[in-house]
C-alpha cells in the first residue's frame, strides 16, 4: 500500500486514479496513481530510472498527444476540470502549464526571439511591451546580466547552463500557472546546476513547480514535497524532510538509503 499524504495548501493539480499506457504497451506504464500537487510549492518526483517519472510529468501538459496511440485514463483536475478530457484545448493548456526539458532546447533564432516566442504566439506585437516582458523574464531567470548586450545574437552561442536559463525565461515569459521540469540539470555542470536550483526555489513564489530528478540531494534541496515512484506506481508522497528522514514505506527507505536504484 502506498502512503500519500494530503497537502494543507491549495491544490493546483489533483491526480485521481490516473493511468497511462504507451502505444504498443499491453500493460499500463503508470498504474492507478493519485496525488495532490500543492500550489506555490515545489513537488519533486524521484525513483529509479524507468519508473515513470517523465511519463507522469508529460501527462500534465498532454505532451503524449504528439504521438499516436498513447492512452490516458482517470483524472487530472486543473482549474476545476479534467484536463485529460478529449475536448481540452491543448494550446491553451500548454500556455498555462509550461515545461523545461532535460537538454536545453534553445530555438535556432536570436536570444530575444526565443524569449518572445511564446508571447508572440499569444498575439503580443507591441514592440515596447515585448521588450519589457523579455527583459523582465530574463531578469527573473537570472540571465539578464549575461545576455543584455547581445539579445540579437543566436541563442545557440550560449553555454548549456545559459541556454537552460534562457529556456526558463522563455517558459515564464507567458506567465504559466505550473512549470514542469524534467531533470533540468542532468546535462549541466555543478555551478550551472546550483544556479538552476536557486532559481527553482525562487520561482515558486509565482508558479507551482513539479520537478523530476534522479538526484535525491537535489530533491531534498529544492522541494517542499517529494513523491517516490517505483515501477509505474507512486509508493509514497510526503513532506520532503519527512520522506527523507522518516520514510513510511519500506521501498522508499531502501531507495533513499541506496539499497537499489
Amino acid at each position, binding site marked *: 500500500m502506498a502512503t500519500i499524504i494530503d497537502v494543507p495548501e491549495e491544490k493546483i493539480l489533483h491526480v485521481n486514479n490516473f493511468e497511462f499506457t504507451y502505444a504498443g504497451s499491453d500493460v499500463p506504464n503508470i498504474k492507478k496513481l493519485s496525488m495532490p500537487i500543492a500550489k506555490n510549492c515545489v513537488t519533486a518526483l524521484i525513483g529509479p530510472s524507468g519508473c515513470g517519472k517523465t511519463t507522469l510529468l508529460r501527462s500534465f*501538459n498532454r*505532451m503524449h498527444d504528439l504521438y499516436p496511440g498513447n492512452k490516458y485514463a482517470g483524472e487530472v483536475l486543473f482549474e476545476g476540470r479534467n484536463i485529460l478530457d478529449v475536448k481540452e484545448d491543448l494550446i491553451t493548456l500548454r500556455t498555462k502549464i509550461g515545461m523545461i526539458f532535460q537538454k536545453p532546447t534553445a*530555438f535556432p533564432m536570436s536570444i530575444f526571439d526565443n524569449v518572445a516566442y511564446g508571447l508572440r504566439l499569444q498575439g503580443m506585437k507591441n514592440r515596447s511591451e515585448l521588450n519589457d516582458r523579455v527583459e523582465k523574464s530574463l531578469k527573473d531567470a537570472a540571465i539578464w546580466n549575461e545576455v543584455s548586450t547581445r539579445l540579437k545574437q543566436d541563442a545557440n552561442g550560449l553555454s548549456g547552463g545559459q541556454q537552460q536559463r534562457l529556456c526558463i525565461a522563455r517558459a515564464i515569459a507567458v506567465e504559466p500557472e505550473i512549470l514542469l521540469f524534467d531533470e533540468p540539470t542532468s546535462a549541466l555542470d555543478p555551478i550551472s546546476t546550483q544556479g538552476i536550483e536557486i532559481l527553482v526555489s525562487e520561482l515558486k513564489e509565482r508558479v507551482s513547480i513539479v520537478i523530476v530528478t534522479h538526484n535525491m540531494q537535489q530533491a531534498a534541496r529544492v522541494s517542499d514535497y517529494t513523491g517516490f515512484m517505483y515501477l509505474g506506481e507512486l509508493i509514497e508522497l510526503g513532506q520532503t524532510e519527512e520522506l527523507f528522514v522518516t520514510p513510511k514505506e519500506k521501498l522508499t527507505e531502501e531507495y533513499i538509503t541506496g539499497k537499489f536504484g
Partner: protein
Amino acid sequence: MNYRQKRIAINNIVMTLSTISALIGLSFLFWILGVLIFNGIEALNIGIFINEGAPPGYENSGLKQALIGQLLIVMYATAAGVPLGVLAGTYLSEYSQGSKLAEIIRDISDIMMSAPSIVIGAFVYAIVVIPMGHFSGYAGAIALAIIMIPIILRTTDDMLQLVPSTLREAAFALGAPKYKVIIQVVYRGARAGVLTGILLGIARVAGETAPLLFTSFNDNFLNTDMNEAMASLTVTMYNYATSPYEDWQRLGWAAAFILSMFILSLNIIGRLFLLQKRGK
C-alpha cells in the same frame, strides 16, 4: 615476416593502390575540365550572349536563344518542383508519423531518383507533348520538375528529421500550433540543409539533355513563349557538337563551358551552406 611487419606491408600496398586509383580518377576529371575550359574560353565572346543561332558559316551566330530558353525552362521547373518537393518532404517528416504510405513514397522516390532521365522524357512526351500536338517549353519544364521533385523531397525529409524532436516538443510546450512549429522552428533549424538540397536539385536538372529532346526540343531562334518549342543549352550543345561544322562545334564548346560553370557554382554554393552550418 612477423605479424607486425606483415601488417605494415599490407598497409603500404593498400595505401599505394588506393592513392594511384584516386590519382587516375582525379586526372581524368582535370583532363575533362582542362579541355572544357581551354576550348570553352577560346569559343567565348560577347556575340555569343547577344546573337541568336544562325546557319553554319554565318558570322554573327550565338547562344542567346539557348541561354534564355535554358533559364526559362529551369525557372519554371524550379517554380513547380521546389514547393512540391519541400511540401512532400515536410509531409513525410512531420505528418506521416511512420505510416505505410510514407514508406511507399520514400521507396518510389528513391527509384525515381535512379530512373534514367530519358524515360521521364518519354513519359512527358506521351502525356503532354502528344495531347498538345507540339513540343513546348512547358513540357520540358514538367520533365525537369519530375526529375527534381524526388531529390528535393528526400533531402527535405532527411534534413527535417535531423532537427531534434525535443525542439519541436519545446515549441508545442509553449502552446504553438503544429504549422507554426514547422515553419518557425523546424524549417529554421533545417534551413541550410533544405536550401542545399534545392540547389543540388536545380544543378542536377540543369545538366539534363535527354528529357528535353522529347519535350522542349529545340529552336534556333529566340523564343520566350513557353507554349512553343524552345532552345536549351544542353540540346543546343548536343546538336552543335554532333554537327560537321566547325563554327557550330565552337558554339557547342561555349555552351558546354557556360553550363558547367553554372552547375559548378550551384554545387559550390550548396556545399558552402552546409559548411557554414557545420561551422556554427
